[in-house]
């Protein structure tokens, strides 16, 4: 097992280098750079920016350097000093821009994930065990709606309904007086009720999907020989259910951790934009639009690293959870 993990980690190094080059290259692909976007924005407001100013800004931001030099400087700073570079747009180190938002994003994502699991797993089990019962149909119906309606639309509808009925614009995670306040118990208490809506909206489609997966997997398991045998031998039904089929059916949860980790920090970008949540999703979108390359690059790099680590973790967990899985070519 340790061999396997070590081997996998070694494999990751060239992979990460390749990813970082691709990420940086793709961000630079569109015409222009951050400065041209920024200057155009100024010009649209009627502000004139001189050619000389543009030149000195380019020098100041290092944008006059060739692509490969910019990439190497960025990589060197990450590896040597742990410095992700500076966001042009925010005029702050990338770590500062992402820092506070990463935490909030994770709070929302972790809570959403727990919400999804708490709702979806029991319903999935119930639907499978009581297949074709009325409640199964009801859950299935709601599930399909949840799967079909995009989160941002749901968010828009909720915002609209709340605004029309109460005149309150439900936006952001904090009341105005807490937006810029330092963290305190009062601020957390202020956030909690405002967290419910985004969590439910973001969790909605996940819940629906997971119910279907749970139900399908469990149904597969329930019809298998070992279940029938156990049942014939008179094993108590709840005990039987939880001891084997559920354990098997939970597999997909574990094997998708590889994607869950990056999703945790990238958040639901569109829902966040609609609901004005101070998470990382909108920052990434805007960084890409503005070609704020160190911010966008670092963010994508973090997401890639997490995907890779997540995949590693799910492989390890799966191997541990399901003895039928074997590591190809490497001795245990």
């Amino acid at each position, binding site marked *: 097992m340790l061999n396997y993990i070590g081997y996998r980690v070694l494999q990751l190094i060239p992979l990460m280098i390749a990813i970082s080059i691709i990420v940086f290259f793709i961000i630079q692909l569109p015409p222009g750079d951050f400065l041209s976007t920024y200057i155009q924005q100024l010009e649209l407001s*009627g502000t004139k920016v001189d050619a000389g*100013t543009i030149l000195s800004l380019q020098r100041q931001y290092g944008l006059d350097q060739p692509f490969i030099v910019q990439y190497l400087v960025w990589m060197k700073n990450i590896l040597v000093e742990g410095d992700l570079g500076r966001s042009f747009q925010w005029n702050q180190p990338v770590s500062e821009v992402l*820092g506070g938002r990463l935490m909030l994003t994770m709070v929302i994502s972790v809570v959403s994930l727990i919400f999804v699991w708490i709702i979806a797993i029991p319903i999935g089990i119930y639907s499978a065990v009581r297949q074709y019962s009325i409640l199964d149909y009801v859950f299935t119906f709601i599930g399909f709606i949840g799967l079909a309606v995009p989160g941002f639309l749901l968010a828009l509808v909720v915002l609209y309904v709340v605004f029309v009925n109460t005149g309150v614009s439900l936006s952001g995670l904090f009341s105005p007086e807490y937006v810029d306040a330092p963290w305190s118990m009062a601020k957390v208490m202020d956030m909690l009720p405002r967290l419910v809506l985004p969590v439910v909206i973001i969790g909605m489609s996940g819940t629906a999907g997971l119910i279907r997966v749970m139900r399908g997997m469990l149904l597969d398991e329930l019809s298998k020989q070992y279940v029938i045998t156990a049942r014939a031998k008179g094993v108590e039904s709840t005990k039987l259910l939880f001891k084997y089929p559920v354990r098997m059916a939970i597999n997909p949860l574990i094997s998708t951790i590889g994607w869950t980790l990056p999703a*945790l920090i990238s958040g639901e970008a569109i829902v966040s934009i609609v609901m004005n949540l*101070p998470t990382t999703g909108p920052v990434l979108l805007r960084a890409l639009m503005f070609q704020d390359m160190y911010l966008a690059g670092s963010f994508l790099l973090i997401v890639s690293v997490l995907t890779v680590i997540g995949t590693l973790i799910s492989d390890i967990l799966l191997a541990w959870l399901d003895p039928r899985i074997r590591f190809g070519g490497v001795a245990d």
Partner: protein
Amino acid sequence: MRKKKMIPIALLLAVLLILTAVLSGCEGGGGGTDIGAANNASKGNNNAGGTGKTDTKAEDTKQGNDTNATKTDGDAAPAEGTLTEFKQSPMLGSVSVPVKDRLPEDYKITNEMPEDLLKYEIGTYGGTLRTVTSVVDWDADVFIMNDEALLNTPGLLGKEVTGNVLKSYEMSDDEKTFTFRMRKGLKWSDGQPVTTEDVRFAVEDVLFNKELTPIFPAWLNAAGDPNGKPFTFELIDEYTFKMSFDQPYGGFLLSLAVQGWRGYTDLLKPAHYLEKFHKKYTDVASLEPEIKKAGFKKGEWVNLFNDKDITNWELTNPKSIGFPVLYPWMMTKKTNTAATFERNPYYFKVDPAGNQLPYIDKIQSTLVQDIEMVTLKTIAGEVDFSRESASLIKMPLYRENEDKGFKALLSNLHVSPTDIYLNMSYNDKNWAQVVNDVRFRKALSLALDRNEMIDSIYYGFAEPNSWQDSTYNIDDANKLLDEMGMTKGSDGFRTGPDGKKFTIPIEIGAQAPDIVPMTELVVEMWKQLGLDVTMKKIDGALWGKRREANELKATVMWAADPMWYYGDWGQGIWGTAWDLYNSSGGKKGIKPPDDVAAFFKSLAKASVSNPQDAKAVVDNEIKKAIGDKYYFIVPLQNVKQPLIVNAKLHNVGNENALAVATDYAGEQLFFAP
């Protein structure tokens, strides 16, 4: 048994939690910085007082009279120099220097808008003005409210030019030499005096320093010509300086006033602050720690200086905290979601009753994720002032929600909303032949139903353009196209000289909310002529790049034409390559045809003439040429712009004022109790 099964899940959660903790560890504090106001307030003011003061005062009165005699004096305000008592905001109660000593002797009496645009009321102090922006580090509403130019043009229409940061100016009869007088006792927001030393620093040590200014700004060359000679600078005394050009440049005055929202920062910099980062005054070796801290390479003092020198368009940038300014409000705090601007205790304007401006103590600018969120916050009554993100298309929505404590006013718009451009210098023989035929452009103009545009897009709040033929006549338009030999093919589409279907691909950047619906209408109207017209919406940055590279064939965009005369008449869009030839002095681009060259000459003439002459050139030459030749099509004029203001906000310009002029005169806004 059951417990055991839960272990993997519990472990999983634990891993997630650990990761959460690790990642949140890279958070760098996140909180905002709060220097600025407090510092400024407590910093001692060591400017000269006592004896010298009376002498200079007497001398100044004399100068003032001289200036009046030459009829080019700055301020026309009634009571300048006569006030003896001054009042200040209660917020400044703890500032030790009395308000009289913080104000310059030559204080400015607010005179931002002419009486026919605003009936000025004496205001009351206090309050926080809330604005919302969807762009990081940029709040156009706050930027325009704060920006101070060296000279002013009341009402922003360029009709006359008065003093602002500078007290007054004098232009020689040949329009080559300009003498400027500064306000005696004017102070930076940190209490340091503003003198011609600050001008000298900005000119000699920054503008004429090849390292700091590798490309000299064209507008500071004679006649604003990139190939012209830079101005010569002459320091006369502590409060007077002279700038001379080797060619007449009357338009220079408007360049120093609001034009291009230029502000004072090009010619006036806080020398006492910036000298600390300038090679000439500070040893580069001693700057190294600062250079390293700012993330630049060893010896890059130029980058450090540029980083520390905050130009006017960076005033909504967090870097500007602590930088000495002359604005009514200065940034004091910035977080990732909001910026706070607090009043500058040394601001140089007062109202006629001697109250130091601004009336409003603070501005709170909130950053939202999306421009639609600005609308939502607006209709929820969470915004006190919004111009930049307000759009006529949302007017019904604003009006419906006016009971939330705001008013949606209709003011004038400072740009023409949507002009239609065909790129006559596009590099395609077939296209150029058709588009350069004035009959073609006239036919397209004839096919536009202005009234339908006004009704369906602007709810009636616009007029057909008065200096271009606004007739709607499809038959005449068809006749012109037939005359050109653009016959209809078997598919019903007209063909170009190459015998193939002639296509007009309109590419738009959707920079304003009316551009898409307007273009859709244009497409439908032109299709009726048998032309193959398409619309494609592209990203704004891509639009800019394609325009620069002369790759746009046709587009829809606004132009700043109704407002100033600085020579931007869309020629960068309808004649991109010709404009480049013109502005590069023939080094780049393509030589324009004679009529366009003559048109460019008129533009140059307008931009270097003083406001009165410029207006004549614009009316008699520029507008006439566009009217005759249809270089681009200006379908509408006098479009209204919504201005969202808190219902309690006073000193807001009336409906004849430009919305942006009310914004520009933000220091005189106040909340009625």
